């Protein structure tokens, strides 16, 4: 178990990192976590996103969750918000999560074959 002392050190390190970072998040990834999403693999997808973000040291990317979006048959659904644009991906797998991070979150290229919906009019 983590000791109080270790937690204090952790805080110092995190604060140092915070100082070197600027402004708001560059991207927000929201995973649908309803019963439908969970049954379809949302936990594995979330873990894959978190691991990929950690591996690539993307400190300004936020992972969040939402409830059922109403399209249970397309789960796991993942919304990526970047540069003011929202894209919803369908049937995301752990592999798909890695692809989304590499292509969309980092390089800004939407992963076309996985798109379920966009907020473009």
């Amino acid at each position: 178990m983590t000791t109080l002392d270790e937690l204090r050190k952790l805080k110092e390190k995190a604060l140092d990192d915070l100082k070197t970072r600027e402004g708001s998040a560059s991207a927000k990834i929201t995973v649908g976590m309803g019963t439908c999403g969970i049954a379809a693999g949302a936990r594995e997808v979330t873990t894959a996103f978190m691991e990929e973000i950690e591996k690539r040291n993307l400190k300004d990317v936020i992972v969040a969750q939402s409830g059922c979006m109403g399209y249970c048959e397309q789960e796991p659904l993942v919304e990526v918000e970047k540069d003011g644009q929202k894209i919803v991906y369908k049937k995301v797998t752990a592999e798909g999560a890695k692809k989304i991070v590499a292509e969309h979150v980092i390089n800004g290229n939407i992963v076309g074959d996985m798109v379920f919906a966009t907020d473009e009019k």
Partner: protein
Amino acid sequence: MMPELSLNILDLAENSIRAEADFVEITLDENTKDDILTLVIRDNGKGMDGEFVKQITNPFITTRTTRKVGLGIPFVKQITDLCEGELVIDSEPGQGTELKAIMKNSHIDRPPVGDIVSVIHTLIVLNPHIDFLFIYKVDENCYSIDTREWKEILDVVPLNDMNVQKTLKEDLLSGLKKIGRSLI
């Protein structure tokens, strides 16, 4: 049905989150001597009235507006029914909800606990504004983590900070290993 009990736990905790709880307590208690596994999820969310609780194991009862079926609780009810156990839900409007699922631990239909580390980690990191207390007991051995204690020391550093996330995962992994439940 969910292949792992930890997925049911994630699902049930989502109910607490949707009920606007800011504190969720999750306890897994494996009593191998009496062969009983107890899961308790307690929250301080908005609760439910007696009429609603009575109908809650009915899949066609849900507060959702996005769909008409709710399978979260019926899944757990199915497990406790199969495993010679019971599901007890205690709730009151404004007072929160306590859900207790009791199962025969060694029952062939009792799903494996599964990757509980990822589930608790996901809940904590994705909901940094909610406090979680997670307790895993195996007979007299016990692991627990209370995010309120972490927050008190971490202060302005949020639980979804990358450094904190990593330490959280290590804490969960080593803690469960210590009680003989390294499941992944």
